[in-house]
């Protein structure tokens, strides 16, 4: 669905992003993580052709959607009029649109103006408009940044159901490991404009952590890596004896991300 070869993006003399090779298959959901300024949004913008780049970006569809972190629409009309104008349809006569509005629980906000919506509602409205077009490839750029916990949870749950139903290919830039855990099939870690890792989370877990890990005091920096199943009991026993709070994991994305960033394999 998306193939990148020798991508290079520069801002002035500074090389902001280089991706030698990256392929995303149809129906895959890719979570992109990295520090601020690492090149995540640059990747999205270059895929969309919004910034100049060198190399090749091939997208096997014309049905591409994007949801950006910040949404700005005009404030001169109600949300209903704006949705109808942008999508060239009438809500009343459009079953698909009505279903989407109901799915994202947005009916009560149709009569409001965009400026009066909360952050979560703004994102839901944009999602309705983006998903109405049934994009085969969807870019989500930090869509939940700034949202409160409940709004983020609700949005993720809704998207999880939607993506499962529609087999959408998604490239999702996020700072939240929880979103990757809930939605992504693969994790792409970008650091200083370079791809540090790209694989399924469970494979990355095996490569960078091992069999399992114990996260102490809910802090990934204080994790204990376990390489063999039989070692788990000993580690757990020691932590209990020490009176530590801990949890065992075989999939924690935050831990995977932390270890990938350290660059130390198991």
């Amino acid at each position: 669905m998306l193939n990148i070869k020798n991508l290079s993006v520069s801002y002035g003399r500074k090389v902001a992003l280089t991706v030698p090779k990256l392929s995303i298959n149809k129906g895959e959901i890719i979570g992109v993580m990295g520090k601020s300024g690492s090149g995540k949004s640059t990747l999205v913008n270059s895929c969309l052709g919004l910034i100049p780049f060198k190399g090749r970006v091939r997208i096997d569809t014309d049905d591409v959607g994007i949801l950006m972190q910040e949404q700005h629409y005009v404030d001169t009309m109600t949300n209903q009029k704006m949705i109808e104008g942008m999508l060239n349809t009438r809500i009343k006569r459009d079953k698909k649109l009505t279903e989407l509005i109901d799915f994202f629980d947005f009916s009560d906000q149709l009569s409001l103006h965009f400026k009066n919506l909360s952050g979560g509602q703004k994102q839901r409205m944009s999602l309705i408009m983006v998903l109405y077009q049934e994009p085969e490839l969807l870019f989500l750029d930090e869509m939940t940044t700034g949202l409160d916990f409940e709004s983020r949870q609700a949005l993720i749950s809704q998207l999880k159901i939607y993506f499962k139903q529609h087999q959408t290919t998604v490239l999702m830039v996020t700072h939240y490991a929880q979103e990757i855990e809930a939605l992504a099939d693969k994790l792409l870690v970008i650091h200083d404009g370079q791809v540090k890792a790209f694989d399924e989370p469970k494979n990355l877990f095996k490569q960078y952590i091992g069999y399992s890990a114990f996260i102490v005091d809910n802090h990934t920096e204080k994790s204990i890596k376990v390489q063999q199943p039989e070692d788990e009991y000993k580690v757990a026993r020691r932590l209990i004896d020490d009176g530590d709070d801990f949890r065992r994991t075989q999939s924690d994305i935050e831990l995977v991300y932390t270890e990938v960033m350290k660059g130390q394999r198991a």
Partner: protein
Amino acid sequence: MIKKRKLVFEFQNLLGNIITLFFGFAFAPMMALVFGNSYANVPQALNQLYLGFFCTIPLSMVFVGFSSLFSQEVEQGFTLRAELFGYSRVSQALHKFMALTVFVLLSSIIYSWIFLSHFNLPLPNAVIIGQMAIFQILNTAVYFIIVFILTTILKKFSRVYGISMISYFAIMIISGIMGNMDVGKLGDYLPIKLFVTNYTNHLNDTDYISGKIGLYLLILLGILGVILKVIVRNKNGNKHQY
């Protein structure tokens, strides 16, 4: 190319902007009535006044109303979003221009009705009305392209609006709508000045046609169109999807 709901969207966008409504619809009749009452018994002066403020309608609608709306849309990234929803820059421009033109013609009709009925002046001849309508459309197109180019280059509301307001008053002063500035030979080429001068005495003629004004506007439109095409092409040079 033209999408009905998008056109309705642009109408609503203009209707929701108080600046467009005030300067586009209220400014011309308000000012013309205020000044007109001093010349109530001088038909030629009233004709001149009528035509002068008639010309301010597209000027106000585009330079004051549209420039404020459009520059904010560009600054806030709405234009880009509309592109991502499948409306190219050209398509957006076309919808906006059509909505503006309808508003300009509607405002021109309302203004004419208010002014002519207030001063008991006869309705201009049908041929002249047709020419006046064409003049308004061509003027709207010229101003529209100027503001579109300005916004595409400058992007920020404050910059665009500053320049468009300066241009607005400059055009009104140079064209003689505001004050009586002597611009020498330049006056022979200014469409608004030519329009007011030429039509003041011909509002009721059945066979008067001034092709020169239309020709000047078309030449201007052609030049601006080429500039716009170059600018839009350069700005879209790195896009491969939309």
